[in-house]
């Protein structure tokens, strides 16, 4: 019946229907529903456990209002002497904020930090005392009841303590000895972040702005009851956010895991080829996969959504805002799952490990994106882009805790309101999903094609660098002293951010543009024939635009586009060390070109697992020299310049050194390019020879018939 219903509603997508038919079996459905229910139950048990619980007389404690913390005065040599100095004043609210404690606000200024308590109710403080001894004096005649393990003894405190006072004799600097009377208050030992925060009292001078311990405070009872007053809105909001995180992380990681695993299964069985041979579009098949493969996960999450909405609405979040998050989550899923499919198409032959790898990477990426929020400065930076790839940033950055992010965010002059950033976030997900889908479409129809064409790569680079530089296009207004230095630091830090992100982008472009061995061989051999899809054009034109030609020139051009745009931004910022900046940018481009040449050379070999070897070689080339230099502590060596772009920013090198470094890098690149050209020429020649040598043989066999 369920399948019939699905058939009627989503019969338009045969792939989706097939995935649902294969997965929505009664056993699977029961497991998904049970797991979802069990998760919700556990989640509620844990989150309810974070509430203060019910009141017990054992929670009671006696303080004064305000409550001074007394300590020893430490001499210059660090030796403690003279007990009784007030170092901190807390305003522990009484457990029963009712008529029993009138006019508490008038007492807050009776003690000050720096006063020394000489006696409590006439009992002098001695230098051998501890804070516990002092506390006993404060408790006075109620100390015995408080120490009693009998609940009935302690319960009497609720009626006997209110209205009593403690007389402190103080020695106040510049004033002398004074007597003050502080009311005793009963407080709770239960501290909880969800207890209702009392209205702010006027604090005495130099007193602590905190109410009790960090982020928590003694809880108060609801007047006339034995229940603690809970800040339910805060609890609902926090619980709602935690549930959002619990939905997002597993959804993205498990979804990626399943999609990559499913694609691997299809490739192994050879069934995907049948689907490719059908007249269905790539969009129809792959969207069916994205919607269908994680269907049980969607079901489990769908069953959580009512609780999610209920928590959000109870936390006073508007329906539209919650819906906004769901939209972001949907768009995030689209981007992550599309990327997972592409990853699955590119990365095969790892014996199923790629599913674990992809799922793990999705989890790590989410965590990294959320962590970058702590690196935010108060000015706009390129790092402001990174959290926008995580749906959870909708709450962390655009919600109450992300005030810095909102204030400092800027893209091409558009400043950060929550609405504008949310719209940008949606646009960001959309734009990058669209690029991923272009690659998916190419790869679906032609499994050995490069992920993007060379033409597309130039547009992609413009899009990437345009979006990146948009975040630092507005030069922030600095406050305070040394404005020029602040401005230079801002430009320098962002330049490093740009160099790193450009380096990462170029490495991804390397993967996307480098043709596989067979198409490259075919290109080398048959390029001159001007075949369908390989227009007969000059070698250079073919290297810049052509299909299946080596990627080195195209990567260099993409590097140049990045470089030109970055230089444009640098000129705008008025950066005072353009040589170092330029050197950093050029050096990183050279490095990627060297990686590209090595990758292409390895991919041209007939080695087994050459893609893995190529990836490992480039990763080793990237990480090992830096690791060795770090271990040996060679931080300011010219050697860094050869293997890693960043030190040029921070260490000054002479122009001659820089030129020598570029000469070495260029020579290395030239050598590798020469080797590549030689290998390609050989591949092309050997084919012709083979054809010439074998054709007469074959013809002779035809003639014998």
């Amino acid at each position, binding site marked *: 019946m369920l399948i019939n219903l699905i058939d009627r509603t989503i019969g338009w997508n045969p792939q989706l229907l097939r995935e649902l038919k294969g997965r929505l079996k009664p056993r699977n459905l029961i497991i998904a529903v049970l797991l979802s229910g069990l998760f919700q139950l556990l989640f509620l048990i844990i989150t309810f456990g974070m509430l203060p619980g019910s009141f017990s007389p054992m929670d009671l404690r006696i303080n004064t209002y305000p409550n001074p913390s007394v300590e020893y005065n430490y001499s210059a040599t660090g030796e403690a002497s003279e007990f009784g100095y007030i170092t901190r004043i807390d305003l522990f609210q009484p457990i029963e904020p009712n008529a029993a404690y009138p006019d508490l606000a008038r007492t807050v200024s009776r003690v000050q930090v720096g006063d020394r308590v000489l006696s409590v109710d006439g009992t002098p403080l001695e230098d051998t005392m501890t804070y516990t001894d002092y506390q006993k004096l404060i408790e006075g005649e109620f100390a015995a009841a408080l120490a009693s393990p009998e609940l009935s003894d302690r319960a009497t405190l609720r009626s006997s303590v209110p209205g009593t006072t403690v007389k402190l004799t103080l020695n106040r600097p510049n004033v002398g000895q004074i007597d003050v009377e502080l009311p005793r208050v009963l407080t709770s030992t239960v501290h909880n972040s969800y207890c209702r925060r009392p209205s702010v009292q006027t604090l005495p001078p130099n007193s602590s702005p905190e109410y009790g311990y960090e982020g928590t405070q003694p809880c108060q009872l609801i007047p006339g009851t034995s229940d603690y007053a809970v800040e339910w809105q805060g609890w609902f909001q926090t619980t709602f956010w935690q549930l959002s995180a619990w939905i997002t992380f597993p959804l993205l990681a498990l979804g990626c895991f399943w999609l990559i695993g499913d694609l691997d299964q299809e490739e192994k069985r050879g069934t995907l080829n049948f689907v490719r041979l059908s007249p269905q579009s790539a969009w129809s098949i792959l969207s069916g996969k994205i919607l269908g493969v994680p269907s049980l996960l969607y079901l489990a999450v769908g069953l959580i959504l009512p609780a999610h909405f209920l928590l959000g609405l109870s936390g006073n979040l508007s329906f539209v805002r919650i819906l906004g998050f769901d939209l972001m989550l949907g768009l995030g899923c689209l981007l992550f799952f599309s990327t997972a499919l592409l990853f699955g198409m590119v990365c095969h032959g790892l014996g199923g490990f790629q599913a674990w790898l992809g799922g793990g990477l999705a989890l790590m990426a989410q965590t990294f994106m959320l962590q970058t929020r702590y690196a935010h400065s108060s000015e706009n930076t390129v790092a402001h882009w990174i959290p926008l790839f995580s749906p959870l940033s909708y709450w962390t950055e655009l919600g109450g805790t992300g005030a810095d992010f909102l204030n400092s965010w800027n893209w091409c002059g558009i400043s950060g309101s929550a609405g504008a950033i949310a719209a940008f976030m949606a646009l960001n997900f959309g734009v990058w999903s669209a690029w991923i889908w272009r690659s998916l479409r190419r790869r679906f129809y032609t499994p050995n094609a490069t992920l993007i064409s060379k033409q597309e790569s130039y547009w992609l680079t413009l899009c990437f660098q345009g979006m990146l530089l948009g975040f630092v296009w507005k030069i922030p207004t600095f406050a305070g002293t040394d404005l020029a230095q602040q401005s230079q630091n801002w430009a320098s830090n962002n330049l490093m951010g740009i160099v790193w992100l450009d380096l990462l982008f170029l490495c991804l472009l390397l993967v996307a543009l480098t043709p596989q061995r*067979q198409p490259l061989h*075919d290109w080398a051999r048959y390029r001159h024939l001007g075949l369908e899809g390989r227009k007969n054009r000059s070698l250079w034109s073919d290297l810049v635009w052509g299909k299946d030609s080596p990627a080195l020139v195209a990567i260099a051009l993409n590097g140049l586009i990045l470089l030109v745009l970055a230089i444009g931004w640098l000129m705008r910022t008025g950066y005072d060390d353009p040589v170092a900046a330029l050197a950093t940018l050029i050096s990183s481009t050279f490095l990627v070109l060297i990686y590209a040449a090595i990758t292409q050379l390895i991919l041209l070999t007939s080695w087994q697992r050459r893609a893995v070897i190529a990836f490992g070689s480039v990763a080793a080339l990237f990480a090992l020299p830096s690791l060795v230099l770090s271990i040996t502590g060679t931080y300011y060596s010219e050697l860094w310049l050869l293997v890693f772009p960043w030190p040029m920013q921070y260490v000054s090198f002479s122009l001659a050194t820089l030129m020598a470094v570029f000469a070495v890098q260029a020579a290395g690149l030239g050598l590798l390019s020469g080797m590549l050209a030689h290998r390609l020429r050989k591949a092309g020649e050997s*084919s012709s020879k083979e*054809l010439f040598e074998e054709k007469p043989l074959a013809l002779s066999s035809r003639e014998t018939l």
Partner: protein
Amino acid sequence: MGRELAIATKGLTKQFNRHLAVRDVDLEVEIGEVYGLIGPNGAGKTTLIRMLAAAEDPTLGEIYINGNQVMRDRRNPTIKRHLGYLPDDFPLYEDLSVWDYLDYFARLYQLQEPERSRRLHEVLDLVSLTHKRTSPIPTLSRGMRQRLSLARTIIHQPLLLLLDEPVSGLDPVARSQFRDIIHALKEAGMTILISSHVLSDLEEMCTSIGIMELGYLVESAPLAELYRRLSRQHIEISVITPAANLEATLNQHPLVDQWGWVDELSRRRQRPGDRPPAADSTLRQLRVEFSGNAPDSAELLRSLVTAGVTITEFHTVHETLEDIFFKIDHKQSA
């Protein structure tokens, strides 16, 4: 008026590393033909079929299916709708039932209700799997799986069917069932290209034959023409000896190229230690290499009877496709 071609390739070439799997193949298959592709292992049959099915891009050359060129890197939806391809490993989805599997492919090929259900019943009936329609795929036997794969291949009524080794690993009964299905599809007007090592099956099913060696298509012709050109015929005659005029009649007949006693032939093939055939048998068989047609054979029979030869058996025998294949000096690819 030109021939209507279901398949036409021009200079089709496929290279894997340094190995040319298919070389410069110009293949033409007319609409409605059942074309058999034969050749030793590694001759390039599977690669050729994969390229025709658009499952593999050619390195060089052009492919036309029903007059439409297969374009590289394109979706080619019209061509795909007209193609049915059954590879030799016929992979299946193990998590679906027979009906759901066929229903999935019917939807992929955009069949709408009620046509879809009607077609599903039709193909299940054709491949004799109606009784298994609700069975999960893992419970099917190899023969059933193969028939299910064929059903999947024809569910959308393709104009051109490409079958790669469809009967490999099947028992004689399953092969016979398969031949019947192919006959039914041929009657329905489908063009079928089929590669197989079971040449007797092809001989029975095909109208044309192509022979591949080392990636080349070394022969491609209608079966009748192939027999005419490459298959010799002979007449086997059983007579009661002694037959006095037999030798003279045969020697004088203009269409008799040569003749000999079968037992003598077999005697010549005797090895030391074998028991010799009886020399004084009254019933003996002879084999006549004859270049005439059917009326000429009748005339020879009449002249023998007139000459007083007592004949107990007289029939014309053609060389089989297998004989022709072995006669061609083919070379196994390395």
